[in-house]
């Protein structure tokens, strides 16, 4: 039950990090 807190934290942080990664890659490549 409590593990869900850890699962959600991992999920949300991963999502945020991936989103930021894509944005930075777009900025770097000049596509954005």
């Amino acid at each position, binding site marked *: *039950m*409590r*593990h869900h*807190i*850890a*699962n959600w*934290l*991992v999920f949300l*942080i*991963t999502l*945020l*990090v991936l989103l*930021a*990664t*894509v944005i*930075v*890659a*777009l*900025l*770097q*490549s*000049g*596509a954005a």
Partner: protein
Amino acid sequence: MKNRNIWWGTLWIALYLVLSLAPLGFMLVGERPIGREFVRELSVALGFVGIAMMALQFVVTARISTITLSYGSDIVYHFHHYMSLVVLGLWLAHPVILFVRFPQTRALLNLITAPWRARAGVTSVVAIIVLVIISVWRKRLKIEYDRWRIWHGILAVLALTLVMIHAFMVGKYIGTPMKRSLWLGYGAVWVFVVLYVRVIRPLRIARRPYAVADIRPEAGNVWVLALKPVGHAGMRFMPGQFAWLTAWKSPAAHVEHAFSFSSSAQRSEHLEFGIKELGDFTSTMSELQAGHHVYLEGPFGAFSVDRYPDARAYVFIAGGIGVTPIMSMLRTLADRGDRRPLLLIYGNRTWEEVAFRKELEELQERLNLNIVHVLERPPEGWEDEVGFVTREMLDRYLPSEERQVTDVFICGPPAMMDAVTTALLELNIHPKQIHFERFDLA
């Protein structure tokens, strides 16, 4: 106290995000490169974030008390486990994207002909793959806990060092003096963290040794280890917390285990631990003799009545050795003259295996404590409960009018804790009122 924990918990998540995303910020510093393809940039960005998140794993498991107090050690370790899979995914995504988009880069996999930057990168990925395999399947691979911990430490440091070498040698993305100094500063933070965890803190712990005052057998293959501080005031802790104990070797040696305090928190100069004779470390507990020096790091954990002082009643549900932190809470409440209603539901296989049963009887005289023993294999003429702790049993013992003002503490085998939690939720006990301690951290 609780607000402070929430504040620290939020601060740590914010810091985690800042440190994981910092390398992306470094990429954007300075002039934008011309003519770089999105796919290559994505691969590089994933690699950088992967390095940062790998380094953060050292902080997550550095036993920083404000982290463990905010979330509880079980959540911190689960976070560490799951995040390691994300890190592995990032470390694999970086080369795989390059291999697919630029097939000529596959030649870098040949370690004989590949340049050193690729050798460092490939070896770091192999190290993290081995690290995850031995950690996820440690029991199936029959690797002893102590041996695993040593290899876990070696592989983690090796993987991180090699990947940093890889990033610096590739250099393209950290080529400018500005980016280089940002990365050097970032790297220095991690060198400090590793030094602090592996050198500075062990030295501080070594200056506060404890001597074994007594070691005595309890029922159910449990040993009670009593310690007294040598040349210092001892350790203050909350009842229900645990400490990492290193015996025989220096505290820098990585052979240590987490044990719950079983003694009263009112006595910081006399510490006791209940230790079940299970693994390779605990089975040698009986070899310890009075006078031996041991080292303690702690206290850790959020499993304590002291975090919920406003509850009108406490319920404790223990399975086997899981009674240890609960003993600490009961002894502490008794020493404080607490008169709130307490219920202990205590499951064991047989009556002979019930640890601390005599002392529990004595505690009943000092506390408003009701004890329900649940035995799988009861002796003849047994009048208490039989089998496992069930929803129906909990429904009978938990007064319905008190359910909303009671905090429940569960400690025992994982299967039992899961079943009891489900039952409590079905009985409309709010998740916030249910507290755990898991012993299977490794």
